[in-house]
């Protein structure tokens, strides 16, 4: 399995479709424990990403990831904007001058993303944020390396997203709710789950949706 510019673009396309379709769902999750804009933010940002990258050629994955990150950074706002932006930007140096990479390399790139996310957001695992999806998923990718089975990735993303339901938020807007945040899925964990599931789809070579 290899990952290259066309696959990356395809990944973002699947992800964006999912976000557009689930915009209201993400917003509803955020209405419950935040301020109700996560769906709007993600939909606005990723649509802009698609508009930017769709008909443009990229010499390597690094350039593409940087453009995706910068676009997110300048179009999303809120908490998720700098986080997702950071994730893509931090991944990009690993791909420097590479048109195509192995899954191990991709895992390393995501690991750099994860470190960036944690540095930027100062959240730990268990704080009921997107980190609760990112950290286990990226750790799993690092462990599996080139033998990663995309379906396992998707299942882990789903499971960790669902698991945020039982957590009490410590970071982000949901933290204001304290114990009242328990019982709700974290919106950023949900969008991150879409991100990894879309990736699994692309790695499987299919783009069927759940």
């Amino acid at each position, binding site marked *: 399995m290899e990952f290259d510019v066309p696959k990356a673009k395809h990944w973002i396309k699947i992800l964006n479709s999912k976000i557009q379709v689930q915009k209201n769902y993400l917003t509803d999750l955020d209405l419950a424990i935040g301020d109700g*804009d996560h769906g*709007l*933010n993600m939909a606005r940002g990723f649509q802009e990403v698609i508009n930017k990258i769709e008909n443009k050629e990229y010499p390597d994955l690094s350039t593409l990831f940087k453009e995706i990150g910068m676009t997110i950074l300048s179009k999303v*706002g809120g908490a998720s904007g*700098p986080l997702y932006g950071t994730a893509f930007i931090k991944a990009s140096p690993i791909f420097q001058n590479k048109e195509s990479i192995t899954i191990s390399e991709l895992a390393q790139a995501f690991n750099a993303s994860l470190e960036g996310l944690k540095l930027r957001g100062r959240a730990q695992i268990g704080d009921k944020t997107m980190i609760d999806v990112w950290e286990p998923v990226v750790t799993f990718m690092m462990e599996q390396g080139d033998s990663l089975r995309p379906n396992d990735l998707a299942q882990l993303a789903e499971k960790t997203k669902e698991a945020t339901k039982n957590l009490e938020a410590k*970071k982000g*807007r949901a*933290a*204001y709710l304290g114990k009242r945040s328990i019982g709700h899925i974290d919106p950023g964990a949900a969008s991150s789950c879409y991100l990894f599931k879309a990736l699994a789809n692309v790695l499987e070579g299919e783009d069927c949706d759940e």
Partner: protein
Amino acid sequence: MKKLINDANTVVQEMLEGMVAAHPHRLKLIQNTTVLVRADAPVKGKVGLVSGGGSGHEPSHAGYVGVGMLDAAVSGEVFTSPTPDQVFEAIKAVDSGSGVLLIIKNYTGDVMNFEMAAELAEAEGINVAKVIVNDDVAVENSTYTTGRRGIAGTVLVHKIAGAAAERGASLEEVEAIANKVINNVRSMGMALTPCTIPAVGKPGFSLGENEIEIGMGIHGEPGIEKTSIQTANSIAETLLTKVLDDLNIKQNDKVAILINGLGATPLMELYILNKKVASILDEQHVEIYDTFVGEFMTALEMAGCSISVLKLDQQLMELLDSHADTLAFKR
């Protein structure tokens, strides 16, 4: 949802253009941004003050751009922190070489976006300092969590730090004075009705016919508890007591009071609230140096209020009194 808008997706841009159309001598809109700056920015020899955040809190923050307060306000989408590039544009537009102070309300999004902007600015050699306002005592303060939110007390930071900057204080001095205000201001709010983000089209939460939410934030984030409707006096007492306790206010302390409407609350009700606030302070022999009543930091069309108390010393009093000429705050 009934709103006086054209398109839920363009409300912020249209608002900003409407502001500049109304006040061309006060405000400039930096092209292709959501940044409003003082018409005379950058002001030579003065530290630049930049604040901002999600839209929907008007007159915060563009209403405080002007002499003696902010140099720029950056507007994000409704209830969404502005992006780093926008904040960066604001920093560049107001820096006259004396450095720029960012006044950030303590929300994860705001903190991250403003921080990234500061990093961009510093990379270009602009001296940037940041202060984070966290006046809302409805939320437990803790270093393990996001911590307290920034709400209406922020306006007093704008006022006092702005006065210091206008008098020629250095970036370090302005930062210190801003932090002094932050350390001495506490607020708490409550809501009677929810509000609706235009692009969402439905209210952010719901309250029963006789229900109110104590400790409500300015984006509809819940606070301490839902209770049944109470008298203005009892609400004033609940909010004020929490604020005074947290600030550790004692006899003969001097304070400034800010009674803030969240959007749909008539001024009449805010003054009724203030009558009780003043009488409680009077009983406790706390001296009210000044009182501000009105809409300073709103949550769209939410009905409700917040009460802020700022503990004053001689320096803060002087800066509070000094000249300011902005749309929403004049001295």
